[in-house]
Every structure is written in C-alpha cells, then in structure tokens.
C-alpha cells in the first residue's frame, strides 16, 4: 500500500515536474510567468494524438516529433506575443500570457470541439504484481523517461555554452548582452525547451489518463506553477523537487482524506510556504539595490 502510493505519487509528480521546468526556465531568463504554459501542454497532447491516430506513428517517433513541433510553437509564441512586450511593464506580459492561453484553448475548441477524445494506447500495458503492490510498464516508463529528461536539462544548463548563457542572462540581463550573448536566441531556446518538455508531459498524461479535452491544461498548469513556486521559481532543481512534492501531497491527501480537501491542501501548502519561505526551497532571495 505504501509502495503503491509512492509509485502513484512518482507518476503524478513527474508530470508536474516536467511542466514546472518550463515555468521555471522562462521565469529564470525573462522574469515572466508564462501562464499559457498549461495550454501549450494541452496542445502537445493533441499533437501526439494527431500523430498517433492520423499518421499511425509509434511512440518512439511521437516523442521526439512532438517535442520539436511544440518546441517550435513555444518559439513562435514568444516571437509573436512576448518579444514585442519585453520592455513593457510585467503586468502587460502576464495579461498577454493569459490571452495566449485562452487563444490556444479556443482554437482547439473551434477546430476539434469540446467533447473529450480517447488517447490511443501506444504501449501494450503489462501488469507486474509484487506482493502487495502492482505497477505497469507504462508507469515505470513515465517515471524513468521523466527523470532522464530532468537530468538532461540540468546537464544542458550546467555544462553547455548555451546553458551557461542562460544562467548568465538569468543572473543579470543588462550585462549579459555586453558579454556577446545573443539574448533573442537564448530566449527562443528557453521557450522551445520549456514547451517541448510540456508536450512530453502532455503525451504522458495521454498515456496514463487517456481521455483528453481542451480544458485539461488549466488545472494541471496551475498545479505545475505551484510546484515551481514551492521549489523556488527560477531554480531547475526546485521545479523538479516541487513537482514530486506536489504529486506526493496530492496522492497522500486523496488517500487519507476525502478528496474534496485535496486542492485546499495543495493551495494551502503554497500559501504556507510563501509565508515562511517566500523564495521557495531552492530560490535565491531577491536583493534589490536601492
């Protein structure tokens, strides 16, 4: 029972963590909270559905293809919606992000329709029973692939030149360009990676919970945002830890309390952490020069 619930938490947590990475990376370089991110995740799920149903692609093709397609969508959204507002007040950018999210939702409602769609089972599920708990190859795959992706993102940011440029930009956006960093290119790469990771989460949600609809991104997007804030927005390690923590809190509260309390506990936790640790677990305290 305990191991069972731990596995359930890991599966849900890895999905939150993958989406939270996008929030945190974009915030890191631009100080922008990209509220359209949850809807990018939803579009990712639909893109995978299209590849699977209309083009009969296998999962191994769908994963990279969706990552690239939705990554490009992220780049385009940034280019069209956020770049013209980069020097505008933060509030304008946040409102634009909300509008982009609504735009993505309504375009899906208009073209595909509001009725829930069945996501095809791309892997044949096998059930493994070990004494008191049961798991599936799907659950193991979701957890493993997510962890590999998170390690890859961490290595990318820590070891590559582009990653170094990202960190520099996040550290100081006035001086980074003076060192020869192409700000537009780095911002595009960041958006592309964030959107790509969200689309992978979209595929995993489709596989694990195979009924998808155009509103699926709203709540999941909020929860992932909460994960990013709990972990310390701007910190990659924080987003991952925050995602897993949130997954565990949700599963445990549903397991031991009536489930109506679950969202209350999740958002209550956010409030509590913000009260005592406003910068989250791994975020750096912001020092403003006077």
């Amino acid at each position, binding site marked *: *029972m305990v191991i*069972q*619930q731990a596995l*359930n938490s890991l*599966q*849900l947590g890895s999905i939150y963590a993958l989406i939270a990475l996008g929030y945190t990376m974009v915030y890191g370089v631009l100080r922008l909270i990209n509220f359209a991110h949850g809807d990018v995740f939803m579009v990712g799920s639909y893109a995978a559905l299209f590849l699977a149903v209309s083009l009969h692609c296998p999962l191994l093709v769908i994963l990279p293809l969706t990552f690239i397609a939705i990554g490009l969508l992220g780049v385009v959204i940034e280019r069209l919606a956020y770049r013209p507002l980069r020097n505008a007040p933060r509030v304008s950018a946040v409102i634009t992000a909300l509008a982009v999210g609504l735009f993505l939702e309504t375009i899906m409602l208009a073209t595909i329709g509001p*009725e*829930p769609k*069945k996501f095809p089972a791309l892997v044949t*599920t096998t*059930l493994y*029973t070990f004494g*008191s*708990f*049961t798991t*599936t190859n*799907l*659950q193991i795959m979701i957890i493993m692939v997510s962890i590999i992706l998170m390690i890859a993102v961490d290595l990318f940011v820590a070891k590559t030149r582009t990653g170094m440029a990202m960190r520099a930009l996040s550290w100081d956006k006035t001086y980074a360009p003076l060192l020869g960093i192409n700000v537009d290119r780095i911002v595009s790469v960041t958006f592309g990676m964030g959107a790509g990771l969200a689309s992978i989460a979209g595929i995993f*949600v489709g596989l*694990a*919970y*195979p*009924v998808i*609809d155009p*509103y*699926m991104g709203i*709540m999941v997007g909020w929860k992932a945002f909460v994960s990013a804030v709990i972990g310390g927005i701007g910190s990659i390690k924080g987003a991952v830890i925050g995602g897993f923590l949130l997954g565990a809190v*949700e*599963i*445990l509260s*549903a*397991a031991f309390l*009536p*489930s*109506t309390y*679950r*969202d209350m506990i999740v958002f209550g936790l956010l409030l509590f952490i913000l009260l005592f640790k406003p910068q989250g677990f791994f975020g750096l305290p912001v020092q403003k020069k006077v």
Partner: protein
Amino acid sequence: MVKNFLSAVSLLGTVAGIIVFFSCDKSDSIKIGLNAELTGSVPVVGKSCVNAAAMAVAEVNARGGIALADKTVPIKLLVEDNEDKAESAAAVAQKFVSGGVLAMIGPNASRNAVPSAVVAESNRLLMISPWATNPKLTMDKKYIFRACFTDDFQGNVVAAFIYKKLGLRRAAVLFDVTSEYNKGIATVFKESFVKTGGTVAAFESYSTGDKDFTAQLSKITAAGADVLFLPNYYNEVPLQIQQARQTGFTGSIVGSDSWGSEEILKLGKDMLNGLYFTTHYSADMATDKARKFIADYQARYGSRPDDVAALTYDSFGLLFESIQKAQSRDPEKVRAQLSSLSKFLGVTGAMEFRSGSGSPVKSAVVIQIKNNAFTYFDSINPL
C-alpha cells in the same frame, strides 16, 4: 365614463363567450395537455414524447375512448411546445390550467419540469413527468408524479443487483463528491447495500475534472472489494476503469444510467466488455408489453423508441388506468387513484406509488456491455 362602461361590457361579454366556449367543448372528451421540448437544445426528446403520446391516445381512441360508468369518452390531446425553457414550460402549464385539461404530461427535462410543477401544484393540476429524474420534482407535492425513477433510487437497484444477481458481498464505491447526482446515488447505495447484508469495504470520492484516481483506487484494491460501483459520468468512467485495473483491481464493475451514452463505448473500448449498468429502459427488452410497444412504434414511425418514448407511453398508461379506476373525470378522484396505484405493468416495467410520494417504486433495467454494444441483461424489481 360611457366609453369605460362600454369597454367593461364588451370585456365581460368576451369572458362569458370564452367560458361558454370551453364548457361546450368539455362535455364530449377528456382533454390531456402535453408539455414537450419540441424546439430548443433537445428536440429529439420532444419528438419522441409527442410520437409516443399520439400513439397512446390513438390506441385508446381506437376503442372509442375510456369507458366510464355512463359512457365511453374519447381523449383529446393538446400539444404545446415549451422551447426547452423553464419560463415557457411554466407558461404552458399555466395555459393548460386555464384551458381546463384533466392532466398535464411533461415536461421531460428536470430543468423545465421543476418550475412547471410549481405552477401545476398551486393550481391543483395533475402532472406526470415522463423523464425528469431530479428528486426535488415531487418533494412535498400532492399533484406531481413521474413515470421514471429518481436519480437516487438507482442506488437501491444497484445494491439489489450486486447482492442478488451477481452474488457479491464486498463492494467499493468511487464517486464525484462535488456533483449532486453522483453523491446522491452513492449515498443511497451504501445505505441500501449494508441493509441488504453486504459490506461497503471502501467509500472513496473525488472532484469533477480529476484525472488521477490512483490513490483512491489503490485503497479500494487494498480493501479487498469484489465489486466496484462507479455512479459517474461517461467521460470519467473509462479513466477510472483503466486505473482500477492498473492498480490490480480484478473484480466486477457496475455503473448507473450516467454510463448510457454511446460515447462511453468510443472512449472505453474493450475494457468495458462484460460490465453492467442500470438504466430506465432498453430497446431490446423482452417483456410482452415492451415487445408490443416497440413493434407498434416501429411500424408507426419507422424508428426504434428511446427511453423518452417508452416513459411517455407509460405516463399515459398510468393516467388512463387511474381514470378508469376512478370512473370519473374529476381530477381529485383521478389523483387519489394515481397516488395509490399498485402493480401497474408498463413498458419500462412494474411500478407503483407508495406513501404519498409522486415518485414510483419501479423496476430498472440492467444493461451489459458486450462486443462494444449495449445489450439488455435483466430487469431488477425492488417491489
């Protein structure tokens, strides 16, 4: 002054004319009003309702009408469209009140039936709704009846089905606690199943829109239940079944009439095979009465009757039976007969009204999902 006097006289004259007109009309037929959703968002419901009503009335009139003590009186059906709007439905009820009908059949949807019932009750108009399942419709009302069972009532039926037909004793429930429908059925089921002698091993809830039920389902599996009851909507049920199987639940799964949309077959596919749910009616029911009704309807309209048609037909059946028993066209006498009608055998099964309630105790249909289609399995009679 003179002008005012003249207009008052002419008004009086008109009113008198109307009264005379209606009283003439009354003598040779029994008028029944039909308050149906002919236009609006559910025109299919209105169409089935009118079709079945016309058929029920035509059958009686073919025999000359209803045989009362002194003479046989034909039925006159008045059809009005409520546009699937609460205010129009209430206005139609008002129109029937002033039109002097003996009873009103309809509206069908609860959102129209509940406001119409308020008008009907305060004007002592006998009303039978074929299809409205909201428990509030007949609560504390004397003149309001329905031909279908209420949402909550299905909890009793499912409990009886699991205990008697499936022979299972350890049940678990997973339900949406934020929706009245799901919560009502789940609560009634728990009470009823425990009273019958079974055990409810786990009683778990979630909120509308949730996608992950693994925490609750792991608990259900660990509690060792042999059957899982999911009184939830068709778009969530496939997810719940899949996750139940993935957490190692191997028992049977049963649902309620919220499963009864063809969409569930598209979303759920093979994993639904062999599972059961309860509902009002099935187009392949096998009782004599149902078989005759389905054949007649098909001959007359060229399509298979749906649940609204069957329940409308039964509403008329209930009303005709009560008029016959009362041997009168006095609404009070007919109401008295209807409220104590027992063992009425309709198309949708046996039904009776008990202890002053306008909601019948009646049998429900169990559908089994086989080869990606709904097939009639059994009728459960809690009488």
